[in-house]
């Protein structure tokens, strides 16, 4: 696998219907939002988690596609049999040893190759990889208005609780949901970093696939209906790129349609425009979804 030769930027538009896309641990798991503008937020790491989960589902135990940071719900036995039989112990030089281990981690683990990882060493020499794929916080297009829903459960956890209720056996719970919101995630792929970790064109294709499909493998009671709606990729025809990223991101405008009165409640209430005519020379626009 040869590493990427091109810089990329990408924008993913995805929406949520009656769900909580990313809870805020500081606010009792209410959907994250910017307290000043009420714009909904989703952390970078939340999206990376979904990418990792998708890759581990799609690639299973395939060599080279292991996921280092796993959720324990993916309880696959990680017997990674066919490792290259490099004899690290023969290498005396500490620096070289670290490099070997670093390369090996990059070769075997998709998430190390894509996002990087901090690997501690005994000396000051820090085995650290910065991955080419960089995500920012996702932001909702319009302010969100989370709703709190109370729910009941027709059972109790302990016998003690049942006694207290004289056998009524009911408990109440709460759920937060966003009735509807369209979110935008902007991301970057650096070619020089890809060359340091060996992130290849095949890896990149897999990244696009995971961005398009990850929500379909991530359904749960809390998340409601989440779907990827549009993935726009800007491919520069060189390593360093041909245009400032902000200019490319500005080519994509997402607005609530004028005829939609009141709050948006469906994807159809938004108009997405990609100004393909203004794409600078040396940049190719690819619509992946």
């Amino acid at each position, binding site marked *: 696998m040869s590493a990427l030769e091109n810089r990329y930027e990408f924008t993913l538009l995805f929406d949520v219907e009656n769900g909580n896309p990313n809870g805020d641990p500081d606010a009792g798991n209410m959907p994250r939002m*910017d307290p000043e503008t009420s714009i909904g*937020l989703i952390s970078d790491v939340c999206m990376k988690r979904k990418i990792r989960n998708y890759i581990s589902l799609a690639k299973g135990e395939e060599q080279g596609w292991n996921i280092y*940071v796993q959720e324990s719900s993916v309880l696959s036995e*990680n017997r*990674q049999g066919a490792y290259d039989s490099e004899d690290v112990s023969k290498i005396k030089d500490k620096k070289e040893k670290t490099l070997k281990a670093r390369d090996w981690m990059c070769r075997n683990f998709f998430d190390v190759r894509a996002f990087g990882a*901090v690997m*501690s060493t005994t000396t000051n020499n820090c*085995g650290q990889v910065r991955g080419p794929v960089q995500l920012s916080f996702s932001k909702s297009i319009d302010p969100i208005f989370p709703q709190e829903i109370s729910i009941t459960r027709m059972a109790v956890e302990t016998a003690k609780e049942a006694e207290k209720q004289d056998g009524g056996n009911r408990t109440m719970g709460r759920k937060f949901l966003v009735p509807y919101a369209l979110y935008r995630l902007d991301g970057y792929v650096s070619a020089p970093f890809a060359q340091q970790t060996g992130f290849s064109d095949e890896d990149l294709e897999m990244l696009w696939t995971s961005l398009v499909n990850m929500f379909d493998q991530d359904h749960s009671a809390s998340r409601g209906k989440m779907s990827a709606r549009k993935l726009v990729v800007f491919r520069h025809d060189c390593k360093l790129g041909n245009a*400032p990223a902000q*200019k490319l991101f500005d080519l994509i405008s997402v607005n609530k349609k004028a005829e939609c009165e009141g709050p948006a409640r469906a994807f159809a209430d938004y108009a997405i425009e990609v100004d393909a005519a203004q794409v600078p020379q040396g940049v190719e626009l690819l619509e992946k979804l």
Partner: protein
Amino acid sequence: MSFGIKLRVSGDFACFSRPEMKVERVSYDVITPSAARGILEAIYWKPAIRWIIDRIHVINPIRFTNFRRNEVENKIPFNNITKTMKRGEGQLVQFADKERQQRASMLLRDVEYVLEAHFEATGTGDGGNTGKHADIFRRRAEKGQCFHRPYLGCREFPCDFALLTGDTPATRISSPAESTRDLGFMLWDIDFAHNNTPMFFHARMENGIVDIPQPNSSEVLS
């Protein structure tokens, strides 16, 4: 002194972590010279040159917001990797929800800075060819090219950048009490040659401008 440059950088969020408050990250009020150097290096750097930050213009008012995330608490143990490599098999994963920490960050929001900087030759390679390095940097910054996407303290806070050729815009901090004040001791940079020793300076903001002491100046303390 060789060619000076001015770069305008901005972003939605930023976190220039204070070293004394590391568990729950708290950002400094303004970008550190060290983070500013990192931004320039993300655009253009070679071992032949060393970027030096001269002045930081704080354009936007200083505002904070809070953000808590689930984070993994451990680093990847290097010994486990080498052991597994040697044996040829084994378990090598981290379980994110078993090794979990919830950590809050005090982030800056809606930041914009103008960085004034120059570079010096380090004495290796063709560092003396200042015109070459200055031109390459200028061309890259004008075209929006970068080696990797520069960021405001942490990689999840990418920044936009543009070369500034005209006048530096005035600060938008309206209150004089806010725009001229003592920012206390701030990280200047890390001395990687001497066992990663942190170096500090006493930062003062005058009308939104922070003057940065030069290397080897008596104002840089370690």
